[in-house]
């Protein structure tokens, strides 16, 4: 069975590591995990290869998570890639905005591995 290829987008390298570690601690069998520091780097990664799941912060310099999501949806090969927002933003309007342009859900920081698993597992199950 194919292991999912995942893109983690966050301007904090520490947070990217924590998200990956949490995914593994949650018992998810991951394939390659690619990191990007903002939306621009993430778009470059998406154009270079297909991902099964993207986890993206919202509040980032250069290109934020909402703008990244909008741009992602214009790339034919990535239109259907599930995206989960991982953010400190408790703002409903930002979350609603992300969901309205195609995010599959969101995880609020701080988070536990179980909370990550709760959001991500159903998405990866559908993929299988």
């Amino acid at each position: 069975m194919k292991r999912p290829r995942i893109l983690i987008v966050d301007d904090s390298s520490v947070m990217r590591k924590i998200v990956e570690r949490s995914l593994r601690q949650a018992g998810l069998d991951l394939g390659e995990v690619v990191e990007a520091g903002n939306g621009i780097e993430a778009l470059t990664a998406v154009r270079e290869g297909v991902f099964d799941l993207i986890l993206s912060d919202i509040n980032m310099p250069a290109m934020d998570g909402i703008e990244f999501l909008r741009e992602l949806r214009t790339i034919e090969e990535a239109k259907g890639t599930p995206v989960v927002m991982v953010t400190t933003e408790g703002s409903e309007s930002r979350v609603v905005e992300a969901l309205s342009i195609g995010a599959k859900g969101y995880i609020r920081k701080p988070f536990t591995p179980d909370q990550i698993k709760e959001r991500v597992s159903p998405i990866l199950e559908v993929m299988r």
Partner: protein
Amino acid sequence: MNPVVASKVQAPVRPDATWTPLLEISSKEVFQIMLQTELSNLPFVGEQRISGDTTAMVGLAGALRGVLSIRCNSRTAERIAGRMLGSEEDVHPSEVPDALAEICNMVAGNFKAKIAGLVDNCMLSVPTVIRGDDYELVTIADVELITVGLTYEESPIWFCLAIHR
């Protein structure tokens, strides 16, 4: 006033007596969840001077304008980063300010989520970290300061919310 601009102007939210305990709870929750660590209250907090050579700051704009900062010494910041990353011996120096900045960001987000009127009407800036203790932060605007002193593994760590009046 331009109606578009007017619609974005938020009614200011003013602090009350609940904000100090809410800042304390918000800080403790972040450390419990992300570091599996309990922060303790700093004894004789009123008699202690806020100090430390590592400060992370996040700006707040909208219904609440100000700065949330976390201040501790560099060794404490290193231990926090190590604990977050799950390897206290193997932390790259560049990861220390990054970790404290993320903690500050999460405390700010957690705090504003607990205050009615702030969740949707207060935005957070990208965090900034200052290293070194030979500085004084001077705010031009009139500010109200909420300070919470806690300890991380017996070392002081300060959480300060400076609110523009």
